[in-house]
Structures are given as C-alpha cells and as structure tokens.
C-alpha cells in the first residue's frame, strides 16, 4: 500500500512537471518563473513550502507538552513569519523587481561579503531543511510499512529530485498546488475524525485530570516562555534568512504580494495549529508516545483512530508536507548557486545554459549530501541554532539596507560577525551569567525586544511609530527581563544577536558619508536569459564588479 501511494504521489507530480517542462528551459524561469506567477499558485506554494513535516510534529509536541496553548505558541508565530515579511517584501520587490535571491540584492546594494554571508546562511539552512524532510520521510515509511528507514529516505529523495530537476522552481510551485490540496484537504478531514473517534467533547471532562494547571491554562507562562517567546524573537529572522520565501516573493506578480502572503499566513497557521490539536487530544486521553519519543505522537494517534483509507490520506498529508518543502529547498539552493555563486562571483558574463547546468548539478549534489546526512541520522538540527542566530544577526542590517542609504558594506559585515561572536558563548553558556555579566546581557536582551517589536511595527506603520513602540517595549520589558531572562539562554542568545548587530550597524552607518541611490539596484539586477518565457528579448543585467560600497557605485554611475 505504501509503495502504491509513493508511486501515485511521485508519479503524479512527475507528470505535472512533464506537462510544463520545456526542451529549452529559461534560466530566469528556472529560478523565479519570470516574476509573474498568479495568486492561486503562489499562495498554495507559499503555504506548502512553509509547512514542513517537522512543523506538524513539533506543533503536536507543543500541544502534548504545554497543553491547550502549546499549538498556538508554535503555529501562530510561525504564521506571523510570513505576515511580517510582507511589508518588507513589497519594498524589496519595488527596489529589485527582477531579483532572483535576496543575497543577489545585497550584492547590488553592498558587494560580495554581505551577499556571501546571506547566501551562505541560506545554503546551510536549506540543506538542513532538506535533510530533516528526508529523515521525516524515512521515519514515516519505516513506521507504516515493512521497508527500512534507509529505503524510505532513498525513495523520498529520488521522488523529489525527479520532478524538480528539469524545470526547477516552475515545477516546484506547480506541484506545490497539488500537494497543498492534499495536505489541507487531509487536515480538514482528519482532525474532526480523530476528535470524534477519540470520544468527542467527553474527552475534555474525563481527561481533565491528565493536565497540570499550566497545561490547562490558555495563558500559560510556561508555554509562552519556553515555546512562544523564542519563536517571536525568530519571526523576522527566519523570514529574512529563508530563500524559499524570498524566491516566492520575487516570483509572484507584484500586485498580488499582499493577497498571497495573507492567505499563506492563515493557511499555515490554521493547518499547523490544527495538527497541534492532535497533541492536545493525546494529552487529554493520557496517551504515552511509543518509545517515549514525542515525534511518534501523530502517527500513533493516526494509526489508532483512523481506518485504512484515512490512514492513507494521513500518509499523503505528511508526504506532501515534506516533499513540497524539500522541492522548494532544492529550488532555493539551485538559485543561490546559479545567481549568487556562478552569476555574481564566477562568470564575467553569465551564460544562461551554463546557469541551468549549475542549477541542475546543484540539485543532484544537494540531494546526495542530504541523503548521506539523513541516512546516518546525523543530529544536524543543532546546526539550525547557529543558522538561526546568523539570521537573527542579519535582520537589521538586511532590512536597513533597503531603507537607509547610509548603511555600508563594512557596517553590514562587521555587525553580523560581532553579533554571532557574542551569541555563541551566550547560547552555550560558556561563561557564568552571575552578577553584573547577567545584568549586562539582560539589558541587551531588553534592547533586543525593543528592536524586534520596533522592526515589526516599522514594516507596517513606518519609522516614527516603530521608534515609539521599540522604545516603549524596551523600557516596559526591562523590569521583567533584568535579573531574570539570562537563565533562558535560547531566548537571551537570539535577543542579544538582534541587539548587537543593530547597535553596531547603526553606530557604524550613522556617521558614514555614503548616500546610496536605491535606483541603482534595479539597474544592476535584471534577467540573465536574453529570451524570456514569453519569447520576448530582455535587456542584460548590469552587475557590480567587486566589493563596492554604494558611494563608489554611485560615483561610477
């Protein structure tokens, strides 16, 4: 049965990919589908990409661990990652309408070091995500069939690579639509079925004693501090650092950005929080996860309460979630290698045919690497800690680079490196936080809270409200943070990364004489392929030669 489903799913997506495949693919189409994708496909693709297998498992784990508010503290903040990037996304598209990656825009704005810093973090993040999805696929196949974990990983990896390899991003977004229909359809059916099969409303009365006071409290401080708060801090970091989001931002028709991002926010939030309810139900029912591993909760509940048909639907749901994210990671990785590595750093004048070859080779190499990491079951999620911190450190320099003409390449690079250097010892408790040291980092954390909230407000309402909210947030949070927060190293590390990079970037930029002309970005980034998807010729892109600050580039113009 599992083999049949795998063949049907990957065979179907391969057919979809073949339907849109062209003998001569266009390099820009391979990366962003020509910047004119419609609402239905882009909203489906954004939703499907952001929902990965781990988010379903993690939301259920949050529900099981922290009780009724747990899934909210996982899914809501994850959904807001999409929403809060939308106002910045509009600005990014206005400044660089023909871009393929965010790092490519940083190259046009600052130069090579800023670009490679962002591109490098994107590559590591996508390889981690790819590996994690292969691991989830292998585990699912091993759990629901007589096949081994390794065989499951191989089947998923080959299946995803096959349908993504030829047409790249175009295949990724179109198959995302089919996958999102399967995923969302499954969630809409499975949750109520499990709910009523497990006893319906009666479970809340009979199982109330299984919950602690914190777990049955919708405003649980445990859930907020351990689950929600670190996610709030990560809202902007993950959105800025993830090339899969940026790629869709550059692909969707410019007038549809708002509609797409809002739909994806609601779709992701409801799906992931909904799946988290399975964990809440397991808690009320007093279910113990098999082998003590909370990742087994969802498959365990599904196999207990669903019949063969709905169990197959469940299998398709998880497979759709992991495949849609994995194909997006492959497309993201290929775009970065095509545009950022080959296009901007190797080729003097990029050849579209060579670009396509680079993209396809990247997909094969990335799949092979993720296969090796996944089959050895390496604990690469620890790497995500470093990447998350790097993304946190990048948030202010990246956003400021789109609005403030004084931000320099030196300020960008230095602020990110110093922030990361401070983050690592804080996150891994390399020194004691007793006494004054703890107080200093708590003050930085309070500043970090102000910066995070200020940036969120800035995107929607502009600079003055952002300054007011940021200052108020820092001042109001200070009495609760100082002397207390340094015990929560994950949260402190993230907030300190935001604060340090912002302070350094600001101080180094505020006195600079640079006055960057943002119109230059549009001139420096264009299509790589002279013949666009519609057969019309497009102008070649202009690219800066090397590490150059905006002032120098302005002078050149």
């Amino acid at each position, binding site marked *: 049965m599992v083999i049949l489903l795998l063949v049907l799913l990957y065979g179907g997506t391969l057919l979809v990919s073949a339907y*849109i495949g062209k003998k001569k693919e266009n390099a820009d189409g391979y990366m962003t*589908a020509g910047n004119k*994708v*419609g*609402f*239905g*496909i882009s*909203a*489906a693709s954004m*939703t499907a990409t952001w929902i990965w297998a781990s988010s379903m498992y993690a939301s259920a784990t949050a529900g099981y661990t922290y009780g*009724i508010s747990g899934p909210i503290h996982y899914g809501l903040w994850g959904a807001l990652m999409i929403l809060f990037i939308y106002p910045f996304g509009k600005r990014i598209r206005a400044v660089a309408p023909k871009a393929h990656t965010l790092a490519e825009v940083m190259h046009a704005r600052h130069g090579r070091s800023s670009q490679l810093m962002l591109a490098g973090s994107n590559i590591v993040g996508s390889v981690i995500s790819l590996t994690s999805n292969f691991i989830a696929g292998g585990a699912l196949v091993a759990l629901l069939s007589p096949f081994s974990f390794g065989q499951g990983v191989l089947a998923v990896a080959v299946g995803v690579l096959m349908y993504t390899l030829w047409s790249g991003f*175009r295949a990724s*977004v*179109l198959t995302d*639509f089919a996958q*999102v*229909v399967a995923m*969302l*359809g499954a*969630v*809409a*059916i499975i*949750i*109520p079925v499990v*709910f009523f099969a497990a006893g*319906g*409303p009666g479970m*809340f*009365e009979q199982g109330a004693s299984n919950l602690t006071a914190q777990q049955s409290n919708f405003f649980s401080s445990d859930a907020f501090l351990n689950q929600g708060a670190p996610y709030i801090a990560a809202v902007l970091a993950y959105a800025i650092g993830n090339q899969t989001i940026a790629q869709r931002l550059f692909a969707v028709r410019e007038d549809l950005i708002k509609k797409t991002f809002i*739909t994806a926010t*609601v*779709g992701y939030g*409801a*799906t992931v*929080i*909904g799946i988290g*309810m399975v964990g*809440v*139900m397991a808690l009320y029912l007093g279910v113990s996860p098999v082998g003590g591993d909370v990742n087994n909760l969802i498959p365990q509940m599904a196999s207990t309460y669903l019949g063969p048909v709905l169990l197959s639907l469940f299998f398709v749901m998880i497979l759709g979630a992991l495949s849609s994210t994995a194909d997006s990671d492959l497309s993201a990785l290929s775009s970065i290698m095509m545009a950022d590595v080959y296009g901007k750093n190797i080729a003097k004048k990029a050849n579209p045919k060579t670009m396509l070859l680079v993209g396809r080779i990247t997909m094969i190499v990335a799949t092979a690497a993720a296969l090796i990491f996944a089959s050895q079951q390496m604990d690469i999620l620890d790497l995500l800690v470093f990447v998350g911190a790097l993304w946190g450190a990048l948030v202010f320099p990246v956003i400021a680079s789109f609005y403030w003409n004084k931000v320099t390449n030196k300020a960008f690079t230095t602020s990110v490196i110093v922030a990361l250097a401070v983050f690592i010892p804080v996150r891994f408790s390399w020194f004691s936080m007793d006494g004054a040291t703890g107080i200093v980092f708590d003050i930085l954390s309070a500043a970090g809270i102000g910066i995070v909230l200020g940036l969120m407000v800035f995107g929607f309402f502009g600079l003055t409200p952002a300054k007011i909210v940021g200052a108020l947030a820092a001042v109001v949070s200070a009495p609760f943070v100082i002397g207390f927060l340094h015990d929560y190293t994950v949260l402190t590390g993230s907030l300190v990364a935001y604060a340090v990079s912002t302070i350094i970037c600001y101080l180094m930029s505020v006195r600079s004489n640079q006055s960057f002309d943002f119109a230059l970005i549009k001139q420096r980034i264009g299509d790589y392929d002279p013949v666009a*998807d*519609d057969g019309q010729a497009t102008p070649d892109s202009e690219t800066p030669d090397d590490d150059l600050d905006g002032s120098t580039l302005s002078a050149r113009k």
Partner: protein
Amino acid sequence: METILLTVYVLIWPVIVAGVLWTVCRGFLKDWAESRKAGRSII
C-alpha cells in the same frame, strides 16, 4: 461551558483550513482559465 469552548477551539482550525483551501483552489482555477485564454503556460 468549558467543554463547549474546548470543542470549538479544536474544531475551528479544520474549518479555517477548508476556507483557505477553497480560496486557493478558486485562485488556481482563475489562473488556469486566464492562461488558457491567453494561450500561454500556467507557470
């Protein structure tokens, strides 16, 4: 009362998901119809 609220809390998500699915499918069909009319690929 608490039981009713918890039931609504659990079951509201699949309802929202179904709404999003409807919106996305309608958008897709519109994209498809427009591309057919214009004689170009949907993506």
